[in-house]
């Protein structure tokens, strides 16, 4: 048998055939590092958590006995006496999506083994994340002190509005905060050259988490502020 034929037979196939090949191979099912496979599985599990939160939110909103407040009124900021609906949240969303961009660049530079740029871009991502959390703290303060909304009470209608809002944005905020810490740790290690031998997959793994947190935010944003 010629060598060419042999290599052809070995070449990874695409589509369904490739899928079948991967699953019927020995040793490993996905051609990715262990950490990355594990992060993917974790994120699927975390997706179930957020899905449960968001479906519960919809359910609570349907069963609440008092009217649901208008998000565009509650989440408005006044500039010179003119209320601009959803302005803060628009900025927050923009920042988070930008951070996904810097993260993607960091992954790219990571694989090119440019330690300095990678660390810097990760730092920028973390900074965007931190400012997101800061603005969220500002929003919470405004809702609590300015509008009198509490987890258990809401002067504008259904008390469940406050309950769900603080619970879900709080849980997401914790994810962002955790992500910022994670990014900072990895960025420091990248900068110090800890991964020279092992390779820079870790940047991509951190990136997966970060993109996930951003993606979840899009759903929270749509279901909470736009509905």
């Amino acid at each position: 048998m010629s060598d060419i034929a042999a290599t052809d037979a070995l070449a990874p196939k695409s589509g369904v055939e490739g899928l079948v090949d991967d699953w019927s191979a020995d040793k490993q099912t996905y051609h990715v590092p262990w950490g990355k496979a594990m992060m993917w599985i974790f994120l699927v599990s975390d997706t179930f958590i957020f899905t449960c939160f968001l479906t519960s939110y919809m359910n609570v909103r349907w069963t609440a006995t008092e009217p649901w407040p208008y998000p565009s009124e509650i989440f408005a900021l006044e500039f010179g006496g003119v209320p601009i609906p959803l302005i803060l949240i628009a900025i927050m969303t923009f920042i988070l999506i930008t951070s996904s961009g810097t993260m993607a660049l960091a992954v790219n530079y990571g694989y090119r083994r440019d330690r300095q740029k990678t660390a810097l871009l990760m730092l920028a991502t973390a900074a965007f994340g931190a400012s997101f959390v800061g603005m969220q703290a500002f929003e919470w303060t405004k809702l609590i002190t300015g509008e009198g909304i509490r987890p258990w009470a809401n002067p504008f209608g259904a008390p469940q509005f406050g309950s769900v809002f603080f619970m879900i944005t709080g849980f997401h905020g914790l994810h962002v905060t955790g992500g910022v810490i994670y990014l900072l740790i990895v960025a420091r290690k990248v900068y110090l050259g800890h991964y020279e031998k092992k390779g820079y997959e870790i940047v991509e793994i951190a990136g997966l988490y970060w993109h996930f947190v951003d993606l979840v935010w899009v759903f929270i944003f749509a279901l909470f502020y736009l509905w």
Partner: protein
Amino acid sequence: MAYVPLADQEQELHHPHSWVTKYVFSQDHKVIAIQYGSTAVAVGVVALVLSLLMRLQLGFPETFSLIDPSSYYQAVTMHGMIMVVYLLTALFLGGFGNYLIPLMVGARDMVFPFLNMLSYWVYLVSVIILMASFFAPGGPTGAGWTLYPPQTSMAGTPGHDWGIILMLASLAVFIVAFTMGGLNYVTTVLQARCRGLTMMRLPLSVWGIFTATVLGLFAFPALFVAAIMMAFDTLLHTSFFMPAIIEAGQPLDTAGGSPILFQHLFWFFGHPEVYIVALPVFGLVSDIISTHARKNIFGYRMMVWAIIAIGGLSFIVWAHHMYVSGMNPYFGFFFATTTLIIAVPTALKVYNWVLTLWEGDIRMNVPMFFAIGFIFTFIHGGLTGLFLGNVVIDLPLSDTYFVIAHFHMVMGVSPVLVFFAAVYHWFPLMSGKMYNETIAKWHFWLTFLGAYAIYLPMHYLGFLGVPRRYYALGSTDFIPESAQALNANITIAALIVGAAQLLFLFNIIWSLKNGKKAEHNPWGSASLEWQTPDVPPVHGNWGPKLPSVYRWAYDYSVPGAHQDFIPQSTPEADEPTVDEQHFDPDHDQSKADI
């Protein structure tokens, strides 16, 4: 650049230097497994004692006054929750999963040993929090293991202030622990198998544990969310699950919540949970039956697909626990249909176990006794499930002793029998010793017959209409006096079965020291975990070189072979096989080797 699959790169092992890192904060999956298993059994004993207290009350209501109505509720709740979550889930996944996965897939350890160690310690914290509720003001929660609101946080429920909070906290911590372990188990099975070991050559134990873990990773989130929301309701007085309620003439400050939402979240977790327990059991018992019948498992592929089908279906049947809560008849129809469909792959597995025994060269070793006992109790419990799955039959039977009988047969007795089978089966590997055969057989017969003496009459009590979770029957028109006599009998049987477990504990502990030295692979098992160079396997499992696998795990009594079993690591050139998958790692260079 040549791509070297990670499974081929030498894994850095954490080498323990002191006694503490070797036996306490160990990263070795085998030590973690034993820690998980013993902790689970220890809390299990607490739950067992609670159940005996309840039985004494039910059997002899006038004679004993060990517990009052509220502590009865607390005992019911803690018994149920401990048994389902902290014993069975932790035992089969944290215990057997940890021990068997790396050995059966030919790995040196789990892929992330440190995370694995953390998983155990976080689990221990969750157990401690749960146990702390016994000492909290007001005691543990008495809301029933289903924790249904609004009654969980109403003043009349014992433990409505501290107990429920500790329960929710403990569950949340448990889920974190499970997730850390579970990610490890799944990744190890998918990504760290040894050369030649394809998914379709995995022993069914690994398939069962793997699928159950996947179910856990998708089902526990619902419980996690439910626990957080309920903690909000209890601590912050939100109204997620709390409707408007008048308590003792006073309206509570809650309104507009949906108790049914909690039920949906709980059972979206709760039904898959029963399969999180059952699937590892299915796997373990398949391997035990095949080994001791000296026959390959009947219909291996069917068994794998049945596990996967059951796993998938278990996510769309949850509302069969809520028929009495009321639902649109179309939904009732839907959930009854899916529930009955799940019986198809389940029955298929039972047939295959029986057909594996058929004309086998059966060795009646102790594990085989327990395995055959399991087939009986599981068929029994499965059949009553068919009754309960139909809406019209369930409505009168729900919340009676019939349901108690159903789930104790199917997820109480059956998994526990397999737990014993598995301990006796793998004890020689784990300890290098043999157990005492006579005591073990006594243990089997007392447990097996005793379990029937306990649960068979409960079906009848259920038909009479005896409700579950009641402290005493009182005098009612529809429950005859004789029901009480039956209750007394059940209690006596329960006490005997409870005492019989001391035989097991004694046997294990005594044999660890005084047992006969086990020979290498005493059952003549073909699967990989018995082929380690040392028994019990040492840290790193395989010595200098990882094993290669050339066949499935079920080459028993193969015509033309030298022995009546061929280890998975014997090359195809040396011995024949009946494995349908022709995959020889020495010739058939798979993609993974590129």
